[in-house]
């Protein structure tokens, strides 16, 4: 290449623009790391044993905890998984194994639509669907709101992982005289089970931090919420209420709650990836 081509000006533009893209990446990564480190630092400082085992203390008293919110969040997530995941699984099996034509298109498109519904709108929907007829807020309503939000991801990940199962496996099953449904339940689903589990775990992690849909379904509670039909506290709503309060003790609690919520999410996300890796290892070896 001759020394004059490309011209110096274009070389200069090249270097400047390429460094700018590097700078952008640096900015994004450092902003995100700052957020993470700041939260973990503040949260770890605010955390103590009382946080996990005590009920919220009145304003001005120290030593309270949010045990009710931790239990509430776990109950909400259990209910959401039970109500949302089965629909997603069935829908995923349908799309991957049975569907074709307009039915598949409609289901897939509607699922994308449902996935794009703003979470606060989902809260309104479940409020009119469950809370208004029952006349009070409840764990049930919150769980259903989160459950509906879980459906699209459960469906799409199930469909994707089932589709990734090689055609030859299905043909092998059918060639041995198994019916289509036998092949699905004894060959295809077991082959994809780690992937499906990963999808569900990531799905749970995604809705665990949802706040807006819980504000007017599960509402909140200063005390433990017995059963499923009472309003319940949850970690995300506690973070919100404490963060916007004017009290310093509550700010500390919000940091601690944020720390617990986020570490929970990250642990589940990483575990999910490990499950997937294990599945891959098993299918290769």
């Amino acid at each position, binding site marked *: 290449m001759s020394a004059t081509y490309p011209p110096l000006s274009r070389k200069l533009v090249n270097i400047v623009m390429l460094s700018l893209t590097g700078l952008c990446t640096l900015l994004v990564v450092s902003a995100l790391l700052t957020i993470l480190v700041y939260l973990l630092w503040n949260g770890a400082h605010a955390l103590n044993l009382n946080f996990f085992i005590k009920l919220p203390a009145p304003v001005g008293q120290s030593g309270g905890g949010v045990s009710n919110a931790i239990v509430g969040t776990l109950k909400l997530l259990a209910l959401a998984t039970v109500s949302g995941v089965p629909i997603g699984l069935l829908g995923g099996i349908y799309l991957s194994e049975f569907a074709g034509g307009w039915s598949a298109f409609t289901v897939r498109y509607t699922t994308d639509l449902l996935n794009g519904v703003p979470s*606060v709108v989902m809260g309104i929907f479940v409020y009119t669907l469950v809370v208004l007829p029952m006349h009070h807020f409840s764990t049930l309503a919150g769980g259903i709101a989160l459950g509906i939000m879980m459906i699209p991801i459960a469906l799409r990940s199930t469909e994707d992982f089932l589709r990734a199962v090689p055609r030859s496996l299905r043909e092998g099953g059918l060639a041995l005289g198994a019916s289509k449904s036998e092949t699905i339940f004894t060959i295809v689903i077991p082959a994809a089970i780690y992937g499906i589990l990963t999808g569900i775990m990531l799905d749970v992690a995604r809705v665990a931090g949802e706040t807006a849909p819980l504000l007017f379904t599960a509402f909140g509670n200063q005390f433990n919420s017995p059963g499923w039909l009472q309003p319940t506290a949850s970690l995300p709503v506690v973070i919100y209420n404490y*963060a916007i309060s004017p009290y310093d003790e509550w700010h500390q609690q919000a940091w601690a709650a944020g720390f617990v919520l986020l570490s929970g999410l990250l642990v589940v996300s990483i575990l999910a990836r490990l499950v997937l890796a294990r599945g891959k290892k098993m299918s290769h070896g």
Partner: protein
Amino acid sequence: MAHAALTTSGAPNRAGRLGKKQTWLERLRKGDEVVHLITLAGAWSILVITALLVQHLWVYSRLARHAFGWHFLFTSTWDPVNGQFGAWPFVYGTVVTSVLALIIAIPIGLGSAIFLAELAPRKISNALTFLIELLAAVPSVIYGLVGIFLMIPFLTAAMPYIQKVLGWLPIFSGTFYGVSYFTASVVLAIMVIPFIVSISREVLLAVPVSQREAMMALGATKWDVTWRAVVPYARQGIMGSIFLALARALGETMAVTMVIGNVPQVSTSLLAPGYTIAAVIANEFTEATGDLYLHALIELGLVLFAVTMIINALARLLMLTMKAHEVTG
């Protein structure tokens, strides 16, 4: 509820696989159609849920729709005590914060995507992308928390310097109290950047090598190749990622509610406190006294739903044409 009845349908199949294998499989052999119908019911219950969602939003907003018509969107009086509801301050705040967030996020997000797809060694690129995607999973209430205690003090400290340079612009005039359209936009931008980066990077990586080689053979620099051959080829996918980010920004609730100040006013200055549709719903829904008030808030939800649905549909359409383009071209 449709899904209550369906939750049990997975159990017999699993039981059949482990125990009483023969008899259940015998029955299942003739039961392909049964399995088909059960999964079909699961899939279609999604259609039912979505239809119910639309119907409920429509029915439960009827009082406000009948009382105010289209004026609802364009009048500025929000006076629950006297039963006057005009949503303009919220619509304005939602549009301003989302657009400003995109103005901040697009160059930075696209720049990062180009770096990660075209320049960085694949291992580093994968690691950084993993990090960025992991942080996309951070719940919005935590962005709000960090927004209140980190972003607001930071912007309050930096604002005198920004105003010294840009204060003559009407959009940077006035006193800065920390909570503002601007703060909300910055937080939103940070939240949507991971979407733009991760989708745009995928799309850029999918551009065929021949597209790059052809340009490079003409003696172009690396930047020329990227900007004139690769990015234009991927533009539909990139636009798709931007639309998805926009839809997410419009519907974002908690983080915005915590940093925008929640004042129903319309200001030219970006440094003034404001309000958004999602924020007013989150704040006032449980306190809404009277049916008209509740219906007005649900109508806001309906508007938000309709707008995000249209934008999501556009995004999907762009992605679809991108895929068709790949297959045929």
